[in-house]
């Protein structure tokens, strides 16, 4: 169960270096998210007032869909040359591998968000009316919620037929409470209604993150070695 930071750090470094050289995940994610934004803006064509109400939902749905693209590649990458089998027989604890992958995905999705948010602001004429700094914890917790479960389910769907389709089928139902919380928190902050506060949603999101991080860490070894 222990996770020596050395193994985690080395795996993370390797993943980032790989991504830096190939830019597979980030490019496909970016283009995918861009398409979602454009398609949504064509199908709704909202004014500034309306878009403030729906933007929270749009942003997070776009990020959720886009992160599936990256999550599908996390483990598929390790299948080539039987790297994953090598991991299984190595004495490195499974959880450090999991943490490295989850943190790696977290970084990729965060980069995506940082690049996409300005586009959203421009396309949907957004202006934050509430306490804008609260968007930072919402983004961090929301991203982690998607990424931690996504990494786990990606490892699970690796052993199934048609695994690319399997991941969203497993991930989306479980993500519903996190999605509600992030979307509601984002909308609350964007609209800036003084009678409501996003704090409750942030707490709920943090609870979700803690619960599912523990569950993933407790079960990952079993799933990795399932044979």
């Amino acid at each position, binding site marked *: 169960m222990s996770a020596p930071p050395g193994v985690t750090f080395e795996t993370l470094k390797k993943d980032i270096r790989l991504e830096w050289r190939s830019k597979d995940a980030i490019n496909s994610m970016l283009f995918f998210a861009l398409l979602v934004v454009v398609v949504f803006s064509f199908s709704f064509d909202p004014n500034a007032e309306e878009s403030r109400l729906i933007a929270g939902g749009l942003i997070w749905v776009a990020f959720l869909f886009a992160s599936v693209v990256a999550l599908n590649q996390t483990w598929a990458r390790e299948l080539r040359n039987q790297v994953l089998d090598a991991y299984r027989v190595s004495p490195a604890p499974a959880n450090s591998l999991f943490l490295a992958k989850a943190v790696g995905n977290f970084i990729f999705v965060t980069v995506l968000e940082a690049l996409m948010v300005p586009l959203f602001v421009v396309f949907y004429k957004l202006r934050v009316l509430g306490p804008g700094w609260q968007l930072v914890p919402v983004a961090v917790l929301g991203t982690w919620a998607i990424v931690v479960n996504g990494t786990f389910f990606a490892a699970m769907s690796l052993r199934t*037929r048609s695994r690319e389709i*399997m991941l969203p089928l497993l991930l989306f*139902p479980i993500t*519903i*409470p996190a999605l509600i919380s992030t979307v509601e928190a984002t909308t609350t902050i964007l609209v800036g209604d003084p009678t*409501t506060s996003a704090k*409750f949603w942030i707490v709920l999101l943090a*609870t979700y993150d803690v619960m*599912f991080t523990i569950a993933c860490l407790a*079960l990952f070894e079993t799933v990795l070695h399932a044979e």
Partner: protein
Amino acid sequence: MRKAFPILGILTAIFLSYGLYLAMVVAPREQTMGDVQRIFYYHVPSAWTAFLLFFINFIASIQYLVRRNPVSDKVANWTIITLAVVCCIGSVVAAVVPDLKAALPQGTEPSAIGTTGVIIAIAYFVIRKYFNLEAVDALAVTTAEVGVVFCTVVLVTGPLWARPVWGIWWTWDVRLTSTLVLWLIYVSYLILRRFSSSGQTPVMAAALAVFGALDVPLVYFSIWIFRTQHPQPVIGGGGSIDPRMMHVLLMNWLAFLCFAYLVCWSRYRLEIIKREVEEAQALESLLEPRSVAR
């Protein structure tokens, strides 16, 4: 055991027809909703049965995960016992301290906490005693499949009832949405079971079931808050139920439980036989390598 099956079948048929008679003829006509309300005697028992089956699935899944390792098995056993004891102590404390008693949801007695804990522990240990590791997985498949069927009945009868009474087919209310999410989770569970290669299916499915069980309270809570912030259609919350209606409801639930048990039993037998056949085939092909090529 095999002789009991037709007897139970006949008993179930009797119960179901008696339940139908009670629901359609004996039960009093509801004052505001009229005869439409009679769908209640099918809607609610299916819901209870589905939740019970999902609960058994959750326990079976946990057991499949923990019993593969003696240490985690022991830890799980003691955790369950501790949970039951804590619940009992909690109910005594809640009965004594008035502030805590007031904090409980309306209409809940403090003893309910203790009873729930003890029932969970009993269910856990009964399943542990009568099902071995392989059988626990078969139990999980069975309860998930039959549970999805009952949950589908709930989701279909719900709108049929809602349309004449509320004027809408569907509303994103707490109970409706939570049930829908539960149904979605278990459908993804069944898809996972179908799509994964046979050797690893049980572990993955069990892990997914545990994730789903963790998810449901969060779904319930988040939608509860989400909806209270928005305008809400009138839902028949609160109020008391006529004892005659309660009698019909419980009778129907008994019939549904018998029916669910019957279906689960045959599905469970089928699963066990299927595994035995697979095992025999694998053994055969090991003994006679050439027969595979044929």
